[in-house]
């Protein structure tokens, strides 16, 4: 037989064979209900993600783990200006960051492998605001943790999920609510899973920065000290730490109790209209990422979580008011509900 290198030389520069011998460092992370077994050759990565070590954070039972194998290669160059690039086919998803840094997600085997530069290995922001949220978003459904495009706030252990079309103002309203008696769990993506085998749900966030579009500066003077920058999806936005900028309370988990669908209206006022759970369920199903047929279990899990999320107190909130006034109305509504 031919040796592998000979078959593809001279167009290959690097071979990386993953195994315990090259990835001797290990840690177990808990990420919004996803149990992640990290193996690497980099102490810097362990330091960057120590915030997520599972002994610290998630108190609820979780399903099968995701294996995350990351090899740091000092010969890899980092391109700090490179945009993330994603593609997927069947059960495989690829994410590249520049030319040389790559991650591959195997959704069937719940395994993620990647090679990165030393500079990226020690970039805490890369891990905590990019790669780990991406991993939970891509892999979560395969282990019973469903990403929902909704904000989540908590009041006294009761979760308020805020859904709505893109541009409805979910993030802006979330910040306005977090300036009242609510704690911020997430302003954008909330990860929902079952609490063990019970019928109750846990909603989790990943403590990523709040993302606000440039016009949010009209509502929050605190943003005047910042400049919008290009975010992961290419949008120009403020990405700020809510605890520092708005002095908001932040929580990592809550239990979904209310679900509102935010709609902007030109008319003044703020109306709360009961929303048929079937319509709410259809909204989430219609806006969910298409999943490949190789993952029927993931699709079924997602549908079941959506059914459970939408089976409770669902309302449409039509508001023509500023975010702070809408937040005040929701605050009063939740007090009485």
């Amino acid at each position, binding site marked *: *037989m*031919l040796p592998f290198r000979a*078959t593809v030389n001279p167009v*290959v520069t690097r071979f990386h064979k993953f195994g315990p011998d090259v990835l001797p460092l290990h840690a177990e992370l808990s990420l919004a209900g996803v149990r992640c077994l990290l193996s690497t050759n980099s102490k810097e990565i362990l330091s960057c993600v120590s915030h997520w070590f599972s002994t610290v954070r998630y108190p609820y039972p979780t399903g099968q783990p995701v294996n995350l194998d990351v090899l740091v290669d000092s010969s890899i160059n980092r391109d700090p200006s490179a945009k993330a690039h994603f593609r997927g*086919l069947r059960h495989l*998803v690829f994410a590249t960051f520049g030319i040389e840094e790559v991650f*591959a997600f195997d959704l069937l085997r719940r395994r993620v*492998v990647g090679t990165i530069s030393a500079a990226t290995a020690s970039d805490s922001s890369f891990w905590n605001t990019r790669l780990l949220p991406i991993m939970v978003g891509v892999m979560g459904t395969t282990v019973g943790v469903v990403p929902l495009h909704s904000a989540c706030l908590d009041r006294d252990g009761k979760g308020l999920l805020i859904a709505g079309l893109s541009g409805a103002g979910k993030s802006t309203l979330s910040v306005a609510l977090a300036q009242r008696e609510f704690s911020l769990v997430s302003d954008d993506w909330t990860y929902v899973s079952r609490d063990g085998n019970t019928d109750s749900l846990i909603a989790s966030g990943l403590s990523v920065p709040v993302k606000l579009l440039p016009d949010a500066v009209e509502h929050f003077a605190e943003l005047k000290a910042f400049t919008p920058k290009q975010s992961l999806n290419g949008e120009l936005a403020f990405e700020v730490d809510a605890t520092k900028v708005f002095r908001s309370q932040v929580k990592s988990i809550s239990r979904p109790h209310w679900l509102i669908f935010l709609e902007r209206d030109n008319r003044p006022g703020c109306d709360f209209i009961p929303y048929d759970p079937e319509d709410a369920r259809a909204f989430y199903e219609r806006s969910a990422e298409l999943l490949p047929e190789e993952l029927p279990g993931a699709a079924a899990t997602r549908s079941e979580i959506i059914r459970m999320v939408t089976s409770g107190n669902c309302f449409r909130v039509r508001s023509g008011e500023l975010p702070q006034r809408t937040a005040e109305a929701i605050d009063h509504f939740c007090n009485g509900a």
Partner: protein
Amino acid sequence: MPLYDHTPYSHPLDVLRRFMPSPLKALLRFEEEIIFVETNDSSLLLPLGYFNSETTSAISPAFHWKLLRDADVRGKPARATILMAGGLLVANMGPACLAGMDLERKELLAFIGGEVDPQDYQNYVFPVLSGLTRFAMGKVVGANA
């Protein structure tokens, strides 16, 4: 003339392009094996041998390739980095060419950017796809060799 739909694919619920159409399907010869190939660009099949059989329904292909021309990805392929992790092999040539090989399922899945021309494909991309396939077919020894 190669069949190729140059229209960039876009679907709001398929940002990963998983469901980009691949309407061209063929049984082709790869060395002495028969492989089944799906693609949206027939020019990606040119290095493969034509397989002519009147009894294709009885053929059990040794391997399955899905090659997608990714029309709106710019740039040329970089020299490849190969990741080998259990049953998965990944070839990264930058956004212009990303390929994954599933050894158990005998599948090769690849995206090839819109600016990868026939020479790039023949000289850089196809040798990598072929090498991965030979390895998966057990015709080569491991990467340490």
